[in-house]
């Protein structure tokens, strides 16, 4: 579904102090997979997400999304790519002067969807996030958790193949964050949407027990899959996927059962498809 082949990203390469964001990164994410991207600030998590929706360009390497090499993508083809992707941000990015319903419908309107589709899909998305009763509320009338659920509804309303989330629980309390986690689990399970989420929220990652890719200085330093630890970790450094106390998260020993309801086919494809490695050392841009 998503492949990174030896990808390097450098911001402002012609400036005096260029910033290297990704450094020879290799990663594969299978269809229907759910991947957490973890690591310290500046590790390259957001850059990785941006590459998926063609919001940044690579210095070298190849990024393939749904079979399309997006490092070669023409500017005119970017909108079509983005229609396959839903994005959720930490700060929700809702339009304050529109109601929840209008915010969700906005995604469909701006891609020219017919009214009949809007009328059918918006209630469905609102129902998925459990906010049908708040459809007419404006963002300032909603709690943080509700706003983020509306943002999720907006991201999934056109049934994207991929859902990207950049720190979606960063502004939420633990209880609300858990609710958002449950919601995303439901979307991942029911719709088969591939989810890639950058997060700093340890408890969120621990609770959901999904594949965890740890980045550091633009490289994958570990790739842990609760369902198939051995294969997932192939080629990666032996490092805890998240900076957790060893008692809670022993290095190289994490093995957690896959979610009870996950279909076997999806589990199988997940364990077979992903592969990551640290391919080369950091270099200047």
């Amino acid at each position: 579904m998503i492949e990174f082949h030896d990808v390097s990203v450098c911001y402002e390469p012609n400036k005096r102090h260029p910033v290297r964001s990704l450094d020879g990164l290799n990663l594969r994410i299978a269809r229907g997979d759910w991947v957490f991207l973890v690591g310290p600030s500046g590790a390259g998590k957001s850059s990785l997400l941006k590459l998926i929706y063609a919001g940044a360009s690579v210095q070298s390497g190849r990024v393939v999304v749904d079979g399309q090499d997006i490092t070669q993508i023409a500017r005119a083809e970017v909108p079509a790519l983005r229609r396959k992707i839903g994005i959720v941000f930490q700060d929700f990015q809702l339009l304050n002067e529109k109601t929840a319903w209008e915010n969700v419908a906005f995604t469909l309107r701006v891609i020219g969807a017919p009214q009949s589709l809007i009328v059918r899909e918006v209630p469905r998305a609102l129902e998925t996030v459990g906010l049908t009763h708040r459809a007419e509320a404006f963002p300032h009338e909603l709690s943080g958790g509700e706003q983020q659920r509306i943002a999720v509804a907006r991201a999934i309303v056109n049934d994207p193949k991929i859902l990207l989330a950049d720190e979606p629980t960063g502004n939420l309390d633990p209880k609300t964050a858990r609710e958002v986690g449950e919601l995303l689990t439901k979307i991942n399970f029911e719709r088969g949407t591939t989810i890639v989420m950058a997060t700093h929220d340890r408890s969120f990652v621990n609770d959901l027990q999904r594949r965890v890719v740890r980045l550091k200085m633009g490289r994958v330093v570990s790739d842990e899959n609760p369902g198939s630890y051995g294969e997932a970790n192939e080629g990666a450094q032996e490092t805890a996927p998240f900076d957790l106390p060893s008692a809670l998260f022993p290095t190289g020993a994490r093995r957690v059962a896959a979610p009870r309801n996950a279909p076997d086919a999806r589990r199988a494809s997940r364990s077979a498809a992903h592969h990551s490695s640290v391919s080369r050392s950091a270099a200047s841009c």
Partner: protein
Amino acid sequence: MEFLQFWTRETFANIRRNRLMSLLAISTVTVALFILGAFYLTISNLRAAVTGQAQKLDLVVILDRNIKPARRDAIVDGARIPQVAKVELVSAAQALGEFKKSYPDLPLEDFVNDNPLGDELRVRLKNPEDFFKVRTYLASVEGVSAVKDAGADIAAQRLLDFNRFLTTAAIISLIVLGLAILLIIHNAIRLTVYARRREIRIMQLVGATSSFIRVPFLLEGLFYGVSGALLASIGLGVLYRTASGNPAPLVKSILPLAPGEILGPCVVLMVIAGLVFGVLGAYLSFTHSQRGASA
């Protein structure tokens, strides 16, 4: 159709949201277009006055003294070329009569039986710019003794030069005022784009095409331009009708063009200018903002 509804709704919602800024943009465009229209009216009236004066410069074609009537009639017919508005034949006797009237104190009785004047043609041109061309042509016709302009050539040259100056001034002022309008709308849309940057970002992220995102801003620029043009037209129309309705002869000579004759083209010019500069200003502003945002 749904696109159009969406764009229209978004455009007007945005104008409503940014009421003060929209009002400011429309007022500034109105003032700029009012100046443009006023300049157009001034130039048009000046040109009309100059052309009117220049058209009064008759060429006097003196025929040979003993010319045969048939040849004289042939010359009269030959003088009716497309550039000529009117040909008047004045006989030698009529010419002497007029001369006597002009100079009653002169002893001209001796010339009654031996008229030294010949028959003459008074030729009025359609366009004063043809003055020199027609004079050369008439002078070359057989049977024509001389073509007099009684100093009209100098006056014609000056009027023509002035006319050309006015035309150049009109073009330059159109460009300068057009650029001013472009700048005003550019800035107004820039502020709108800034105010709506989150919305634009979301549209880009969910896969809206650039042209789709751009359309509401172009419509907004068009709205500012056309609204400004219509308001300026109303103001200018009322003012011109009031001024040209004044019966004073001076006003008639300053404003020779009737409101019905000049206000139509003036309104069309202002609406087209508002439309073109509005859309162009919005287009440049949006493109510029997006380039800045993606850099």
